[in-house]
Each structure stands twice: as C-alpha cells, then as structure tokens.
C-alpha cells in the first residue's frame, strides 16, 4: 500500500481516502465474502470496514501496517454483520449451484458442497484465519498481527479449522446416518 496515500488520508484528505478505498475495496470485499459466505453480508461488512478505516485512520500509528490493520477492521465488521443478521435459522446452507465444474468434475462439486457445510460450522475467528492464510497467503505471523492475537492462537485456530474442513470432506466418503437407514 502507498504509505503516502495512507498518511494523507490520515490527515483528513478525502481524495486520498477515495484512492485508498478504490485500491483496497476489492480485496476487502473478496475477503469478507469468503469469510461470511454471503454476498449481501459481505457488501455490508466491507462498507462498514471502509467507513471504520476512514474514521479510525488517525489512530493508526504505523502507516506501513495499513494492510494488516484494515484486515482487522474488516474481520470486526464481519463479526458485527454475522451477529446483526443472526436469524432463527443460524446455519444456512449454500448449494454450489451454477458454478462451473473444475477439472475434477463432479467430485469437485461435492467437495465444494462439503466444504461449504464445514466452513459454515466454523466460527468467524476460525474462518478469518483460514481465509487470511489460505486465500491471501499471509504468513501466520501476519495473520496474528491482522487479528491482534498471538501466533500460537492463530496456529491453533488454523489447525482446528482445517481439521473441521477435512472432516467435512471425509464425510462425503461415507453414507450419512439417514442415507444408511433408507
């Protein structure tokens, strides 16, 4: 990130912030969508995160750390969205409809479905670690900085999350209780 742009926006330069928002908006939105698994929630979370960036920018001590700091604000916004929109039905299931089949064909579709289920069972904490590490390719130290937690906590969450996702994938290989009883 252009630290000069960050510094100008910190000083209240709205034009600089506009450039900053354009530069980071797509990435924040992509991360929010992958954490929340819902396009509307992701848009709301990104919007809130960008407003928080503007509001709290003067409190960012090191402009060079803008990226990690913005991810932290985004994850907070994801928490808020997830809580605000919690419904009587807290475990929505998203089917992989209309998505193109990959090289592995049907098995990939099944993987997606299973991953979607497994991922939705994870807390926002765990989802954020998976997305920041495996989607953004951030090393664990930077994930820890972004989330404001110790690196050991990140490692633990990642282990737990990946174990859950593996279990979801493995579940596909055996019949469910209902399928088995029919």
């Amino acid at each position, binding site marked *: 990130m252009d630290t000069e742009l960050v510094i100008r926006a910190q000083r209240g330069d709205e034009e600089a912030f506009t450039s900053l928002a354009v530069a980071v908006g797509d990435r924040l939105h992509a991360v929010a969508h992958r954490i929340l698994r819902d396009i509307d929630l992701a848009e709301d979370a990104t919007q809130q995160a960008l407003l928080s960036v503007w509001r*709290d920018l003067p409190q960012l001590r090191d402009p060079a750390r803008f990226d990690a700091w913005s991810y932290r604000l985004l994850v907070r916004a994801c928490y808020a969205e997830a809580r605000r929109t919690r419904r009587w039905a807290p475990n929505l299931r998203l089917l992989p409809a209309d998505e193109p089949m990959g090289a592995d064909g049907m098995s990939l579709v099944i993987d997606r479905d299973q991953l979607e289920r497994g991922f939705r069972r994870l807390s926002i904490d765990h989802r954020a670690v998976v997305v920041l590490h495996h989607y953004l390719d951030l090393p664990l130290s930077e994930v820890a900085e972004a989330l404001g937690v110790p690196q050991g906590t990140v490692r633990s969450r990642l282990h737990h999350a990946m174990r859950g996702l593996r279990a979801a994938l493995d579940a596909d290989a055996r019949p469910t209780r209902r399928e088995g009883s029919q």
Partner: protein
Amino acid sequence: VSSDRDVTRIVRSWLDEGVNVLPDRVLDLVLDQIPATPQRRAGWLARRFPVMNNTFVRFGIAAAAVLLAALIGFQFLSPNVGTPQPTPSASPSSSAATAASPWSLLDASEDIYLLPAGDYYLDLPTYPARIDFALPDGWWYYSSGTTREASDAHAILVDSLDTGAANGSGWGVSFTLVAEVFADPCNPSGGSMDASVTESADALATAFGTWPDFPATVEDVTVGGFSGTRVEITRAETATCLRAAAFSTPAGYRFEMQGPSSLPVADQFTFLDVDGSVLVIWTTDFSATSPFEVAGGASPDPDAHVGDQVELRSILDSIVITPR
C-alpha cells in the same frame, strides 16, 4: 481425502472461487458518507501520557488502576453479574449446577454457530432468574433482536443439516418471557388478551387453552426445581393461516407456533412462576420434521428428530433455575 496437503489444496482452490470486485454502488455509498463522518483523532493518548516518563507517577497510576479494578470487582462480582471464563467442558455433565465454570451464552459471541458441548447459563436482568443447563454436542445458539443483551428470546436449536433444511431447523428449546398473548394467533394484529393473563403460570396456561383452532393439553411439571404448567399446542385443520403467533415478548419478538403439517408436530410452552414473574420455556419435543424445515426443503420424515428428542430432554433435565 488422503492427506493434509490434499485438504489444503482443495480448500485453497475452493477459496479462489467467489466474488473479487466490490460493486461501485457500495463504494459510492461509502464515499458519500465520508464528508459527514468525522475522523477520530489520535491525540488522546499523546496528551494524556507524557507523564509516564516519570517512574513514580507511572507507579502511582498503575496502583490506582489496580485499586479501581479491585473496587469494581468487589462491586460487581455478585453471582448474577459475574462473567465466568468461557471454558466449556469437553462433554456435558449431568448437572449444570455442579459445573465449576459454566459458559455464559452471551459470551459465545465469537462462536455464532456451533456451541461446544458443556455447561452454560443465561443470566440477564430482564429474566426473573439465572438459568443453567448442560448442552450436548451439535446445538446452536440463536437470540432475537439486534443484541444478545437486549434479547428476551434465546434459543438452542439443532443443526438443520441433519434434516436438509436450507433455512435452519427451528427445532429446540427457548427461554423467553411473555408480554402479550394474542387473542387470535392467526391474526396477531387483531388484539391481545387482557394483561392479567400474563400474571401467573396458571393464567397463561388457561389463556393458551382458549384458542379454538389450536387445541391444548395441559400438565403440571417441575423444571429446575420450580413447579409450573406445560401446555402443548397443536393445530386443528380449521386453522387457516400459515403462520400463527402465540405471544409477543417484552422486547417485541412475536413467538410463532408450528405451521400446517401432515406429520404430528406441536409446541410445548412451560410456564414457571419464578419470583413474581413467569419464565417461559418453549420446546419442540416431537420427532417429525417440522413444517419450518419442510418449508426449507427438508423431506418430511416422522422420525427425523428421534435422537434430538433424547438430547432435548436431557437438556431440560439439566436445567437449574436460580432466582435473584
């Protein structure tokens, strides 16, 4: 899946799919708000703490902070307001009362989905008592309203993935309160019964038994050491509405009953007189796929919740109610 590397590869590939562009309208909404959104200045810390270079002053502030924390702790560490550490046990115990560190439902804010098995409690000033209970694995937490603290309809629900419902299960147990009982559940906007029906468990049970289209059976029960009345409500074919609301809570949440179904379904409302108020425990102790789940795409199955019923009853058995 053969190895961790395979899992990582699949997860990474899956994460690569999805939206990557923020719609212009969202960006425009943000930028439109910027002129009216003041920035928070960082000068607060800079102005307040240059004195921290002085060791004595720093020690004095630290000591004052410790003293203040101790005073606050003394003030608020009553049984009703304390905040136990979120350390749910790995497996549910038979009695929540004997658990050393039950987990406040309100502290489960980071885990909005699956609740770990363990001992939990709900303790809010709007409720007449603290409620402790033990949860097995695989249950989920829901609360109505915008914040958990302001909610008066807290529910523990089973996982809808077991039944294939895309909209959630709506099957479980809820702790709630009654403000108004609707005169006609099919027409909640049409008016409420007299306020006196909310004054006792017996009065509520009687009121719930007066709806012609929603037959009720009543039995005396004891839950958490408190005796009360449980009313089971079914739906007669004469009920024409799809959605029927029984009552509203003080926070304004409308509590709906089961919709039309070809399977035997029912709502149970347990009313307990606790310290001059009535605590309501709603349950869905029936084995069939609920109408809510069927509406969400689940296949009707008369035995869908047989296993869940066993767990639900164990949760009810574990309840301990502690009035303030």
